[in-house]
């Protein structure tokens, strides 16, 4: 199907009078913004990787991120909390796709319902991250302070915590902006703005941003918690 549009369309698409990429201007610019944002995140993560490769030792993530809310102190549950955070973000991404899809069908109620679920997912993720930051801060970790030892129990550098808080913080800020954007989309939908325009293309653009936030988390999760 996509190949049909791709092979048959070019002569018409580049004939002038319409977008040669067959998307609306705002959506194209959202794609280019996300591409530049991908390079920003990529630069952060690659700097982290470079530091890690340049160090003789590095903390074991399973020893650092082993706590769970309401669990007794000293509990050893690595990867559990962060996998819950990952699934929250995946599910909120799914509800966002469903909202975009409902928008294409001009189904206002389904858009509202799925946007609310997406916003709740975003807030749940931010709450988890707030808990984790608070917990690590109580353990003495912050920018410029690393209480953890390397995996081979040698002295660890502050690069570990600096990168962790900078990168998860930058990602958390993106999630926060995404939640704000989605709340604005929800208000606009409830005010029938899109019904009057006759299309829900704005929801698609917000959706692209939200999926990008999920995409970045895939990389952050892998680089900081798994490997």
């Amino acid at each position: 199907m996509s190949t049909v549009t791709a092979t048959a369309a070019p002569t018409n698409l580049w004939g002038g009078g319409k977008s040669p990429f067959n998307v609306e201007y705002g959506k194209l610019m959202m794609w280019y913004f996300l591409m530049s944002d991908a390079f920003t995140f990529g630069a952060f993560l690659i700097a982290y990787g470079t530091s890690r490769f340049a160090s003789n030792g590095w903390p074991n993530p399973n020893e650092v991120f082993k706590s769970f809310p309401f669990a007794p102190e000293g509990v050893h549950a690595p990867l559990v909390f962060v996998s819950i955070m990952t699934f929250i973000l995946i599910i909120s991404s799914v509800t966002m796709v469903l909202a975009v899809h409902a928008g294409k069908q001009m189904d206002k109620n389904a858009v509202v319902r799925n946007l609310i679920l997406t916003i709740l997912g975003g807030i749940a993720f931010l709450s988890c991250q707030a808990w984790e930051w608070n917990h690590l801060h109580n353990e003495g970790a912050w920018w410029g302070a690393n209480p953890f030892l390397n995996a081979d129990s040698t002295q660890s550098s502050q690069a570990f915590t600096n990168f962790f808080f900078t990168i998860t913080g930058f990602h958390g800020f993106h999630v926060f902006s995404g939640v704000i954007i989605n709340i604005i989309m929800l208000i606009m939908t409830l005010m029938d703005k899109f019904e009057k325009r006759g299309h829900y293309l704005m929801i698609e653009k917000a959706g692209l941003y939200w999926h990008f936030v999920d995409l970045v988390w895939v990389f952050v999760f892998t680089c900081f918690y798994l490997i």
Partner: protein
Amino acid sequence: MSHTADALHHDDGSAVKEIWKVTGILSLLTIVELVFGFAMMGMTNEALRLAIKGTIVILMIAKAFYIVGYFMHLKHEVKNLIMTIVVPLALFVWFITAFLYEGNSYRNLKNRYDPYKKAQTEIKVHKNEEVKEIKTTVE
């Protein structure tokens, strides 16, 4: 515009079915990643650890493909649009290779020419005294 939308979503059910299929794939990939993550704990064989880490990175790229291709709908866009997004991202291949190589080389040079520093990074410390020292430096 409306023509393409019709062509791509000619039938409502198949689009929703695709969303749930991709959700299933993403969840499955995440679960496999987590299984590898748990399997790696306490593993001492460095070569095997490295192989598992490589596998996790491949799974990560697969997840990225499904999110960008299906959730962000890039796979169903016009080919020229796909190319303007994906081709610049190919810079990452150089970006990652060059910088990780650089980091590794820096560590090797430092270890070779600064034996004092190298010996320092090999001193084992006890967690308790370490925490105390960090606290005093923070204050």
